[in-house]
Structure formats: C-alpha cells, structure tokens
C-alpha cells in the first residue's frame, strides 16, 4: 500500500483484471451497438407500399386588381419631378383559386393569397396528397383573376400510377397554364 515509509498514503487503485477488460469491451460494444443500430433501424415507412403521390406546387402572380388611372395636372404638380408618372396603377394582385378533383371527388380547393405587405407578390402553394397507386382521373381548375367568375384554366388527365410515382401539378404561364407531369 505504501511503498516507502516517507510516501503519502493512498488507497491502492482497484485491481483491474480480466473482468475490467471484459467490462470495457461490453460497454464499448453497447455504445457501438446503439450507434450502429439506430443509424439504420427501425426502417422508416414514409408512405404505404401501394401509395403514389400527387404534388401541387407553383408560384404564380395573379392578375392585378383594378385599372390604371390617369393623374390630373394638379396631382402631378404635387409629385417630385422625377417621380411624375402619368398613370397611377394599383399593385394589389388577385388571389389564385385552385380546385383539384380526383376521381370525381374534391381533393383540394383553396384561394391562395398573394404574398407581400402590399399583396403584390406571387401566390405560392405546395401541397402533397398521397393516393393509392392505380388508375385515376384528375381535373384541375385555376382562376388567377378575382374579377372573372369560374375557372380560367382547366386541365384533365388520366393517370396510371405505379407505387411510389410522383405526379406534379404545376402552373407555367409560358406553357399555357396548368402542367401535369
């Protein structure tokens, strides 16, 4: 315990024999198993095995609400010279109404407000709809002008979806509006 008479007494360190080494191995193995197992297990089932996914995603500015107005000479006189635009045009845009019908039943219907403090930005949407794989009929209506009643854009599609297939409903004005791909 004390090697020489003039040495500070200290408790002998606990003897660490094979059991201690085995203990180390077990504790390290437990740590490794925790890391190894939960880095891959249990497997995650994101969607059912027979599911497909319909996504609605677009960013589209609705029509501007209201008409431009000709400014009077008095009004123009009150505006600094470099800001004197002849017309006063409103900035607010129309909300974009969307309706999706799947196999004759409503899947989604909403009116998407334009973004921005002045409501002058695009209407943005992202929605995901898990559906069963197989044959479906899809109809999409979009109206981007609140002053017009009824859908301004319409598209139908016959879909045959294998499990895991993603169908995207997009709106690209340059391509005629609704795009289903």
């Amino acid at each position, binding site marked *: 315990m004390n090697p020489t008479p003039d040495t500070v007494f*200290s408790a002998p360190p606990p003897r660490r024999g094979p059991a201690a080494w085995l203990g180390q191995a077990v504790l390290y193995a437990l740590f490794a198993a925790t890391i190894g197992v939960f880095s891959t297990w249990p497997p*995650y089932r994101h969607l059912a095995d027979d599911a497909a996914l319909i996504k609605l995603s677009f960013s589209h500015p609705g029509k501007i609400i209201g008409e431009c107005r000709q400014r009077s000479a008095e009004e123009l006189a009150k505006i600094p010279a470099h800001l004197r635009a002849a017309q006063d045009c409103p900035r607010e845009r129309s909300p974009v109404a969307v309706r999706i019908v799947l196999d004759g039943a409503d899947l989604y219907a909403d009116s998407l407000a334009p973004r921005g403090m002045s409501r002058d930005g695009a209407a943005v949407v992202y929605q995901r709809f898990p559906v069963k794989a197989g044959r479906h009929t899809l109809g999409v209506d979009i109206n981007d002008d609140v002053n017009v009643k009824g859908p301004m854009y319409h598209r139908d599609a016959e879909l045959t979806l294998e499990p895991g297939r993603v169908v995207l409903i997009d709106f690209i004005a340059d391509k005629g509006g609704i795009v289903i791909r």
Partner: protein
Amino acid sequence: MAASAFAGGSAPPDRRVFLGISDAADALFDRAFGAAGNPLRQLGALGFLLFWIVIASGAYLYVFFDTSVHGAFTSVDRLTKEQWFAGGVMRSVHRYASDAFAVIVMLHLLREWVKGRYTGFRWFSWITGVPLLWLMFAAGLGGYWLVWDRLAQFTAIASAEWLDWLPLFGDALTRNFVAPEAVNDRFFSLLVFMHIGIPLFLLLFLFVHIHRISRPVTWPAKPAALGMAAVLLVLAVVQPVASQGAADLAKVPLRLALDWFYLGPLVFAYGVSAGTLWSVLFAATALLAALPWLAPRPGKNAILAPAEMDLANCNGCGRCVDDCPYAAVIMVPRHDGRSGTRQAQVLPDLCAACGICAGSCPSATPFRSEARLASGIDLPQLPVDALRRSLAAGLAAWPRPGGSGLVIFGCDQGVPASSIADADTIVLSLPCLAMLPPSFIDFALRRGAAGVVLAGCREGDCAFRFGDALVLERIAGRREPHLRRTLNRSHVATLWAGRPDFHRLTGNIEAFRASLRAIPGARVSNTMPESSSHESDP
C-alpha cells in the same frame, strides 16, 4: 467531531434521484475503465475528439466529391465501392462519428444538468451550448443532402417542407425538389458551402462555449480516445455505410433505412405537423436557455460569496490566477501605488467560490503569528482564519493530551463530513479540497495529530474541474504552495471518494490508521467512524 462552519453539505433534493443514477453509472464505468479513464468524465473532450474526426474524414471525402446533380451520387457511390478500404471506411467513420457526436453531446448536456453544473457562474457555458445543438443538427442534416441518394431525397424534401412552415422564404423552398429538372449543379455547390460553413460556426461556438474556463480539456485521455476510434473503425468494417439508390424526384421513396439520431425529428414532423415540430423545438430551446434561472435557488446560507482580494496581503505572485479553474482571477497593476508588482483582482461574475485561490495563496499559512489570519485572497464566508480557528480548537479539545487521532480535510462534494466524524477525529469539510493551503497539514501534525487525511471527491470528478490534481501536485512539491519538503509524508493520506463511497473511504481511513500504528512512536487511536447511519456503497 465535525466543525460547524466546515461541516459540508448534501446533495440538492431536486436532482437527488438523477445524481444517484449518475453515481451508479460512474461506479460501473470506474470499475471497468478506472477513475482516470472513465469516459463519462470526459464527455466534453470526447465531443471535441469526435468533431475533429468528422472534420478530418469529411475533408478526405470532399477531395473526391463531385458538386453536380449526377456527380454527387456517383462520386460518393464510386468512392464507397471502388475505394472501400479508404474512402468507404472514411465515409462510414464520417457518418458514425457524427452520430456518436450527437449522442455524446446529449449525454454531456444531461450529465452537466444532473450534476447541477448549469447555474450561477456557469450560466455562460450552459447557454452558449444551446446554439451548438442547433448547429450540430443543421450540419448533420446538410450532410445527408449531399449524397443525393434516396435518403438524401427524403431528407431534402422533408427538411424543406419543415423549413417552409416558417414565413422566411419568398418562394416555397420545397419547389427546388418538385421535379428532376428543378435541381441544378449550382445547388450542390451551395450545399457544400453550407456543409463546410455550418461546422465552422459550430467550431466558433465551441470555443465560445469553453471561453470562461481556464485550461479547457479538449482532448480525452489516450485510452478513451483510442477506444472511441476503435468503436468507429469496427462499426465502419462491420456495418459499412452505403447509398440507398440514386435520388429520383419522379418517385417518392416508400421505405428507408433512416439515421434516427439526425432524421428522427423530420419523421416526427410527418407524424404530427411541421408547426408542432417547430413548437416543440422552440419550447425545448427556450427551456434549456432559461434553465440556469429556473433552477431552485439555494438557501441564503448555502450561497457562497465570491472570493475577495486583500491588497495588504497580496504580493502579486499570481498563483491564484494560475490555479483558478474559471479564469475568475486576473492580475492588474497595483492600486496602492507600489511599483514593480501587480495585484490579483477577482471577477465576481466568474467566481465559483470554490476557494481554490485561497488554497494557492502563500500568505494563507496558519503559522503566521497574527491573531486573525488574513491572506491575499479568501472566501468571505469561509476564510482561512476560520479554518485555522476550527482546526486549532479541535486539536486543543482532543480528549488525549498530545493527540492521537486524525485530522480529516474533506470535500463538500464527497462523503459527507458528518458521517465520518467521531470523538477522536477532526473533520473539516471544504467547498473543494484544493482550498486547503498545504501548510495546514504541517500545522495539524505539529499540533499533535497522528495523521492527516485529505479526503477529496471521487478521483477525476472534481466539481471544480481539477482540484484533485492541484492537491496532489502541491503535496508532491510540483506546485506552489507546496507541502514542506522535509515533512514525513507517511503521516499524510490522500483518499478519493464520492458521495456513495462511504464504506470504501472509512475502510481506507482504517488502513491508514493501521499504517500509522506501524510507524515507531506513533500515537494512533483505534477509533473507527460509525457507519450505522450511512447508506451502503454500491
């Protein structure tokens, strides 16, 4: 007897159960690894080690990584398969070290909370650790995007959907992943930039996190470092990480082998909602950040005031600065006009009131003739003068003239002083054993004590970081102030025992008594501390 001013404390009631579990885990690991090698006492340092392993392995992977839509998957997959012995192992080590980092960091957080090391002066270290959790999570998520396999596809879309819940992005972030043509090569350059940038922020915060402690331990003991490296290598060989098929945005992955350490929250968001996940995370973050101020306040008597400097007794030696574990003492030009020397200055907000500075002060020697022992730096509520008075009174009151018992200097974090006191033993418990100036040992022996026991907390588990190491260095003469070199050290014992180690401590004290009896001419009583009222060792 146990002197009242130095009678020691007890475990705080709010965490007593958790402390019991923590002590039991420590005891188990101590048996396997030894006290000095116990990984549970090196969680912070192990976190640093894992961070550097992640950085080093990531740097290797980056050399081969192609920052393009098609190149991202193929370059990683090719590296994994064609260079399995190096690139494959590196990839696996990179992943598993990241997972281990998350586990170790959470254990570190839990342990510091259980030990109560988050309140008072420690608030800064605690609160700067909170952003680290977010950065760690963000860095981990970004890594999964880069591989651009089916798991990356799920991770990218799930985390984009989660982020889109916040009104931060003008367009939906998720629109970047709605179709194969939506993802471009520049996007991967941005991802790489973020996957390097976020860990750099993490490193910055790590250094802020340890800013208020002196001599931070950022590297674990060699056995623990080697053990952790072995764990990662074995995992890399036994269960190598592989890609889960190239990402295809026209298809949704139905089943995935998920890394639950980083991706679990995204699954939670699908189970409830993105808003719920944000709410839970924000609430948890706020709770963690507020914890130092929500903790139960100790009673008025339990709060120790910060150390105070006495300029008249400070010679500017700077030993208190060297020994302070929290950088709470600095040297400044003297205020009394004496040129050529400096004086210590206590930063009260950083002071732990551990008393280590008092133990380091060369003027804190009990042999000084003044009626009131005043030292250069001291704890106002537990001054070394009171320690000398308690010790002197105890020695004078010993039933046998000349003394034959032991003086035990204990630690408030160790076995409670009251449980080891008896009629022939003087027990003085200190906030930290390193508060004891070594000359007090000499003082006790010269005044008739047969032996002096320095009973600290469990070895390597000092609540004030390295009090045990300071004591040993002072006794061994390797650190100032040191124990008188000519003092016969066979009358001195250093024993380390945590709260549950009562029987081990008393057994060792009895063994020390036996060793003293073997010294010719020694007067040692046969008294043993009573153990009936104390809980058992595990």
